[in-house]
């Protein structure tokens, strides 16, 4: 072994980052050594013997493509009789089928079609989201093409697709990120810089992506290394890549032809990828190109994800490679290799009904982007209990709480709320995706404004209204915020008005809650005792006063006080129900604050709500029914315009309110709500010991 390679091995064993020359030297190591090193790094990043997979379907919306890449056996030029654009009926059938088969998402890709407008793609995404499926869609060459065609620019195209509900972007079309190779391979396609730029833009908008590498054609190993280093560098800056997926070029039926590289070179490349990409959490096997046997063996060469139970794979199938694997088969392969299979979604969050409980946050959930400088932070240390790495991961109670970089205040708000701050150019630190003992939390976006750091979490998801009220995981969200050191929460919500004085477009700072919901969980301690606590006042009095003071001079009418009646949802209430709530003293009706506020109090968080009225509740003002629009006509156009004015001002308003909340000094008892249980010894001093 030469000196560089020896240094590389030493550095890997010590958990240090490889220099470009050392990365290059890895290629000469023997396969078993590379494998055992990659496996070691894999267990450092993911100490559990768990291998994840996603259940999704590959849908190619069109095979008509202007690009004509030489390695592609799938495309047809415009005008070719074999060209197609998928019809809505066909799409609907595939989507329904996917749901039936337990799929959670769609991998949506297609050729570069000369005359489909951007609205076609937006509709496509929204249509798929309508089936409750995630959309992992449009690789960078497609995005570049849309941007070019629509004249809108990358950022706007991405933003529009996100607004339509796009979940994440697949890393296809990366091939080899060296223009020398690309010119020969796919001259009509996005350049390496363009590919990277799409990813960077997406990451900065809060959209996660994967990255791929197609190798084994014209490139050298040095070019493969360059590809990996380019990804590592971008990941250092944005942290937005979830996974890396290398796969081999399949020559059958392509203009390029030649021989496919073998399993040996595939595994070698996989292992080198794991070793060089120390900052991308997941590494995925490509069973589509390698077959089930090599894919299984690849789990010993650094991979921790088995990819998808792809129901359809047109692009690779066109080259004559037709490996098919069912969910049962993937579960069997993972289990027989000695790992626990776990289904995930496209954001690498465990899908419910899983074999094992999710564990607290660790490297795999990771910071987005990484907070510490990459040097020396390459990977956490191996867990105690041997190199085998099958010990359970530590629950993470050893670090101090609150953390030294605690975020004092958080905003829980509507869909995609963080975008208001991105658009305003507020300094963005990135997002955190935390797994808690109560499951996966929604992403937490961290911003900094005038020395104040604050967190933003969207209750109902990031893009569409993908998590309706009864399905919000309040416990996970609050746990995640508390983990980050948050002590004060501003809950922004959009109720209807029962009290006619509170018209749409008005702001209300409620003072009490009337809980008419039927669906918990209402406590962090089911069946354990703690939770018998007093709720007078419900909302933190100190924050309420600070909030009202800060709202002085705000352009919208503000009501100090109101009773928020909470219902379960997701449906709206009936006339009779509103009448009942009115008789009981309700002023507002909504589906968000309960059980959120009560759970926040169990974690001893100061919590205050700011409501903006979006409509009159059913029966309060007579309104004709209008199918197909939001609230089915419950709000008039004029009212909606007023509500939109509030929404437009939300970001600016929040930037004024949050500092006031962060600096409120009046005394409150919120941080001592569980004091009685502490004194009795039922709960420990450190809140993180409360949940075994």
């Amino acid at each position, binding site marked *: *072994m030469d000196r560089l390679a020896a240094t590389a091995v030493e550095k890997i*064993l010590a958990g240090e980052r490889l220099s470009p020359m050392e990365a290059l030297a890895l290629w000469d190591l*023997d*396969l*078993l*050594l590379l*494998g*055992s*090193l990659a*496996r*070691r790094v894999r267990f450092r990043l993911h100490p559990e013997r768990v291998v994840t997979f996603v259940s999704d379907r590959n849908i190619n919306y069109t095979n008509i493509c202007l690009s004509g890449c030489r390695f592609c056996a799938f495309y047809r030029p415009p005008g070719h009789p074999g060209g197609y654009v998928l019809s809505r009926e066909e799409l609907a059938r595939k989507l329904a089928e996917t749901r039936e088969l337990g799929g959670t998402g769609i991998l949506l890709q297609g050729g570069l079609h000369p005359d489909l407008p951007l609205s076609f793609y937006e509709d496509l995404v929204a249509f798929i989201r309508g089936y409750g499926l995630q959309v992992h869609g449009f690789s960078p060459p497609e995005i570049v093409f849309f941007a070019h065609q629509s004249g809108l620019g990358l950022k706007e195209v991405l933003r529009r697709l996100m607004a339509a509900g796009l979940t994440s972007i697949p890393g296809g079309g990366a091939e080899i990120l060296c223009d020398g190779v690309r010119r020969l391979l796919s001259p009509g396609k996005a350049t390496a810089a363009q590919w990277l730029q799409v990813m960077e833009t997406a990451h900065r908008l809060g959209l996660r992506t994967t990255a791929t590498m197609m190798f084994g054609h014209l490139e050298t190993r040095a070019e493969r290394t360059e590809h990996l280093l380019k990804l590592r560098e971008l990941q250092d800056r944005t942290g937005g890549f979830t996974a890396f997926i290398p796969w081999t070029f399949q020559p059958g039926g392509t203009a390029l032809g030649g*021989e496919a*590289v*073998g*399993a*040996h*070179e595939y*595994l070698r490349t996989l292992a080198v990828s794991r070793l060089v990409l120390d900052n991308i959490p997941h590494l995925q096997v490509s069973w589509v190109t*390698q*077959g*089930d*046997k*090599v*894919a*299984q*063996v690849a789990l*010993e060469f650094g991979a921790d994800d088995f990819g998808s139970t792809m129901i359809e794979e047109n692009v690779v199938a066109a080259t004559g490679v037709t490996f098919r694997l069912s969910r049962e*088969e993937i579960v*069997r*392969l993972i289990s*027989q*290799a*000695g790992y626990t299979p776990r289904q995930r979604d496209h954001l690498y969050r465990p899908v419910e009904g899983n074999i094992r409980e999710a564990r607290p946050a660790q490297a795999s959930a990771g910071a987005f982007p990484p907070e510490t400088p990459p040097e020396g932070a390459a990977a956490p240390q191996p867990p105690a209990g*041997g*190199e*085998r*790495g099958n010990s359970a991961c530590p629950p993470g109670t050893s670090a101090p709480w609150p953390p030294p970089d605690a975020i004092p205040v958080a905003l829980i708000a509507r869909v995609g709320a963080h975008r208001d701050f991105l658009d305003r150019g507020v300094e963005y630190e990135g997002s955190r995706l935390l797994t808690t003992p109560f499951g996966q939390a929604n992403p937490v976006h961290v911003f900094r404004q005038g020395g104040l750091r604050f967190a933003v979490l969207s209750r109902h998801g990031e893009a569409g209204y993908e998590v309706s009220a009864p399905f919000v995981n309040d416990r996970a969200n609050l746990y995640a915020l508390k983990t980050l050191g948050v002590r004060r929460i501003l809950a922004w919500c959009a109720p209807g008005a029962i009290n006619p004085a509170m018209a749409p477009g008005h702001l209300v700072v409620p003072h009490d809650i009337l809980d008419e919901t039927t669906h918990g969980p209402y406590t962090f301690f089911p069946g354990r005792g703690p939770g018998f606590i007093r709720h007078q006042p419900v909302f933190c009095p100190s924050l309420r006063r600070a909030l009202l003071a800060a709202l002085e001079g705000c352009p919208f009418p503000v009501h100090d006080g109101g009773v928020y009646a909470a219902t379960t949802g997701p449906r709206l209430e009936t006339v009779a129900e509103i009448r009942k709530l009115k008789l009981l003293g309700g002023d507002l009706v909504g589906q968000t604050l309960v059980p959120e506020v009560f759970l926040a109090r169990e974690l001893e968080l100061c919590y205050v709500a700011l409501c903006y009225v979006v409509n009159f509740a059913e029966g309060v003002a007579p309104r004709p029914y209008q199918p197909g629009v939001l609230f089915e006509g419950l709000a008039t156009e004029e009212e909606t315009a007023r509500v939109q004015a509030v929404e437009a001002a939300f970001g600016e308003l929040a930037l004024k309110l949050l500092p006031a909340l962060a600096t409120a000094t009046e005394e409150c008892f919120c941080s001592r709500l569980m004091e009685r249980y502490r004194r009795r010894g039922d709960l420990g001093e450190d809140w993180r010991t409360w949940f075994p």
Partner: protein
Amino acid sequence: MTGPEPYISDAALLPVYDKVMAQERLDFEDGLTLYRSPDLLGVGFLANLVRRRLHGDRAYYIYNQHLNYSNVCVNGCRFCAFGKPKGDPQAYEMSLEEIFAKIEARLHEPITEIHIVGGLHPDLPFSYYLEMLRGIKRLRPTVHLQAFTCVEIAHLAELAGLSVADTLEALKEAGLGSLPGGGAEVFSSRIRRELCPRKLSPEGWLQVAQTAHRLGLRTNATMLYGHLETLEERVEHLLRLRAAQDETGGFLTFIPLAFHPANTGLSHLSHTTGFDDLKTIAVARLMLDNFPHIKSFWIMIGPKLAQLSLTFGADDIDGTVIEERITHMAGAQTPTGLPRQALERLIREAGCEPVERDTLYNVIS
């Protein structure tokens, strides 16, 4: 690097590592430890140490022709997709003319071995077999004939009313060069009662092989794995082969055969996994310390796994097979032939040096 770090991650393998380094014989428990370890790379590393010690970087292949003269079989083993009862619409038998035509059709190719196996045909006369060998030798005088598994030999002996030794002598005179390793299945009476009750017993199989060895004929040995057998039964199988080899020394190559369930009486089973294939190769290399060669038959496990197996203990990946019926009736998804360049490229990519051999592992240059 030859130390156990970082290759071995399962501490249970360390005692085996010590034995391998000291070139000590492994026992039954070691075999089970290897099989049960989740540490595929660790097991592969141990096997690779032995493989390198014996063969360095060399990886053998052979240019051969396969001939399955008939699929008619009286045994009806449950794991077999090849054998068919006489009269079955899929049953076939080749006439001697057909056989010779197949040989003639490839006379221009540098074939060094003809590999002949078939079912247990109830009424083809012994002379058919003798004529087959003689006729092929006439067409290709220098070719090596590796023909008839121990199971077929026992069957022919019965048909001819001869002893096994006399049967082998007669065939040898007609041109037989060596015996392929098939029909060993798993040496477990439990499995054989369930899957192939009519087949030649393990004792019978070993006896034919050892008789052949005493007559100067080399033979191969196989193990059919991935059906109903336990890991203990696999290890016992290997130990019985090792003991027989200690006595007669005539085994040349061991070939693990992955079970293909499609179109067999066990089609409800899953096919073997990559882990199992590689581990079986590796364990065989480690347990069978007196077998010169371990072959991974690429037709059975596919070229990708065969290539990887060269790093997990195998030193041979069989041949440039053009026609091979047995596995393909059982639905193997692998191509039916690989050209020489493709085979050599596969081997080179695995960091080995391709060496073309004849049946007895003489290097062809």
